């Protein structure tokens, strides 16, 4: 039973990682413009994020420290403030994208402009955090997140070309438009390897009081949870490649792509699309707002945890309360959520090294991990993927900006 609850944390984390506005948005565009060609970015992103979640779960189980705890104690506040600040900024941008995505989902459902929905959505997310417990949120999102499996069903229904699909899992140059291709690869990597997954998952592990008995289940959860998420994101690429690409739809906005599921599912397709988008975005928004509170509280050594009532942890609760109105502003003024998403994902990749670098140092610290320090494969895989993503980003982002789109 306890393992089932851990899988819940894994799926919640992965819903936040994959089934949200970032992954849906980048996957839709990738499929529409390059068919299966960018599947490899999703694959290496998944490998990286599975390693990262396994690592942070292991840190929580062996040392009872969260990533932020360990980072502050090892590196000191003078250094740790930089990863903290970058992550708070990235979190706020991504949170704004999620609120935008959820508001847009309601626009698709009702025809009423997303600007009207920004405040109700932000308020609803806040109320769930204020009134709910971690368990309720975790299980609710994990169960509702299963709706997004409709993309997998759709992909199978449409019948992808398996040979071409398999070949796309190996990194390669594009058939055309290298600038756009690289920018989308960065977007996919940023949407997949989100730094908040790392801090969130380790906080969840500490909050659920894992011990070294949980190491094996932790490994399973990292693999199953992230596998689940990446399966859905891959399905989005495939469906987009089979539905949007042949029709010449570039998926420059979510509205353009909203009919995507009506081909396999007819009249159920449209509601399934906006429901998936809404659940994914709200799930991710819950996770990210909690994450902002987690990392700030842990940095300053305040009591933290979503299992307590707000009155017992006033500062913790006020941090996410403060984050919500700030993050609602872009949706409120009607900023295009897909553009904001792409920007947030690029920003995420730029911030990755400063968060992941110190984490790798801690994961090799024998005082924290005892005999469970990182193996050479984990170290090398994570460092290589993060370095690749970062290099791709500093090349692709300026090109994209100069070239315009």
């Amino acid at each position, binding site marked *: 039973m306890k393992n089932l609850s851990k899988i819940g944390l894994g799926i919640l984390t992965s819903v936040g990682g994959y089934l949200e506005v970032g992954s849906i948005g980048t996957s839709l565009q990738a499929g529409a413009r390059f068919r299966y060609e960018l599947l490899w970015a999703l694959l290496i992103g998944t490998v990286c994020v599975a390693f990262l979640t396994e690592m942070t779960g292991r840190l929580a189980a062996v040392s009872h420290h969260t990533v932020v705890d360990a980072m502050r104690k090892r590196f*000191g506040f003078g250094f740790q403030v930089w990863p903290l600040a970058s992550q708070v900024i990235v979190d706020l941008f991504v949170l704004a994208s999620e609120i935008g995505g959820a508001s847009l989902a309601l626009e698709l459902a009702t025809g009423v402009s997303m600007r009207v929905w920004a405040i109700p959505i932000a308020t609803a997310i806040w109320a769930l955090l204020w009134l709910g417990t971690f368990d309720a949120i975790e299980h609710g999102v994990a169960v509702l997140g299963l709706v997004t499996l409709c993309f997998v069903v759709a992909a199978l229904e449409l019948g992808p070309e398996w040979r071409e699909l398999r070949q796309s899992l190996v990194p390669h140059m594009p058939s055309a438009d290298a600038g756009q291709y690289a920018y989308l690869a960065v977007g996919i990597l940023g949407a997949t390897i989100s730094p908040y997954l790392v801090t969130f998952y380790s906080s969840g592990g500490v909050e659920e009081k894992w011990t070294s008995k949980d190491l094996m289940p932790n490994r399973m959860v990292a693999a199953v949870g992230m596998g689940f998420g990446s399966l859905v994101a891959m399905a989005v690429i495939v469906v987009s490649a089979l539905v949007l690409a042949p029709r010449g739809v570039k998926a420059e906005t979510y509205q353009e792509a909203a009919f995507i599921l009506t081909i396999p599912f007819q009249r159920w397709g449209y509601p399934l699309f906006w429901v998936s988008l809404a659940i994914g975005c709200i799930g991710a928004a819950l996770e990210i707002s909690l994450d902002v509170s987690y990392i700030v509280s842990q940095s300053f050594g305040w009591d933290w945890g979503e299992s307590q009532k707000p009155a017992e942890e006033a500062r913790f609760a006020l941090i996410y309360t403060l984050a919500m109105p700030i993050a609602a502003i872009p949706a409120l003024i009607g900023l295009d959520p897909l553009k904001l998403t792409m920007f947030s994902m690029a920003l995420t990749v730029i911030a990755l090294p400063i968060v992941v670098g110190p984490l790798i140092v801690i994961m090799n*610290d*024998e*005082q924290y991990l005892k005999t469970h320090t990182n193996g050479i494969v984990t170290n090398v895989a994570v460092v290589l993927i993060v370095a690749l993503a970062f290099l791709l980003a500093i090349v692709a982002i300026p090109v994209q900006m100069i070239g315009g789109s």
Partner: protein
Amino acid sequence: MTRRSRIVRVEDLLGQRVRTAAGDVIGRIEEIRAERHGDDHEVTEYLLGRGALAERFAIAPRFFGRHPTKRVARWDQLDIRRPDRPVLTCPVEELKRE
């Protein structure tokens, strides 16, 4: 006996380059050890150099090379009254090496 005393912050000392009386830099302060004596906690020694840093991070030796130097200065071998410029009060050779 003089009763003059002044407050110095550990976070100011940390990472500062330690110089000999002649002005040569011999390494940075990476750790400060204290022990309890009766009701008081007193500083016993300062650990200097990359070896002390490696020890603080408890990282497998493969990341720091095999034998990074670590020097140990007894409390009376290091003058910390100016935390931005700590100075040895003895020749380097008298410091313990580990």
